[in-house]
């Protein structure tokens, strides 16, 4: 199951969906808005997606993970718009008969999502500045 949503993510619902009798292990990863990055204070993050492509890439990640690991359930949800401190921007739930597979799949899914899914994060700093985050850009993208 994949979902792109502008609403708060219900991670407990993902956990419940993954908790099935065919599984013995559930790994839930939740990415949340962190207050401090390299000493600088963040008040919130906001996320923009190229929605049609993001959904397609997320569906592809789910399919690839199910191909590679014996997953009972595999859920990826990403939020767009403003995400306040400590709230979830992304949640991934993977369940499998044995724990190694759920751990590896969840880790691979978040690592790969961060490389391929067209979603971008904008930092909103406590000092009022905002900044699009583009790893590898050659200078600041926005004031």
């Amino acid at each position, binding site marked *: 199951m994949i979902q792109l949503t502008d609403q708060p993510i219900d991670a407990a619902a993902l956990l419940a969906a993954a908790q099935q009798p065919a599984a013995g292990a559930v790994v839930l990863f939740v990415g949340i808005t962190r207050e401090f990055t390299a000493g600088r204070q963040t008040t919130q993050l906001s996320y923009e997606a*190229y929605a049609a492509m993001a959904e397609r890439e997320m569906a592809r990640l789910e399919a690839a993970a199910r191909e590679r690991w014996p997953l009972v359930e595999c859920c990826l949800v990403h939020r767009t718009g403003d995400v306040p401190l400590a709230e979830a921007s992304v949640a991934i739930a993977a369940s499998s008969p044995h724990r190694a597979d759920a751990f590896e799949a969840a880790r691979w899914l978040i690592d790969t999502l961060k490389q391929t899914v067209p979603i*971008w994060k904008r930092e909103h700093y406590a000092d009022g500045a905002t900044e*699009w985050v583009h790893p590898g850009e050659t200078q600041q993208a926005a004031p």
Partner: protein
Amino acid sequence: MRVTVRLFAGAKALAQAGAVEVQLPAGATYADLAAALAKASPSLQPLAAASRFAADTEYRQPADAVDAAAQIALIPPVSGG
């Protein structure tokens, strides 16, 4: 051919536009498109080297031919998660 390139996030902020139009010769590749885009929107320069292109929601390689009928987007380095 005339190609419209959708912009997102920092690219949209740098160009101050959600899309840029560029003119390309027939048979042009995405590498050619990158060069034409750099000329049309020099402000995109900080993101140019690290960005990719997508056509109809699929990543494309620099050597691929540009399909003018597709929806083309500039995908700057992603930072979801």
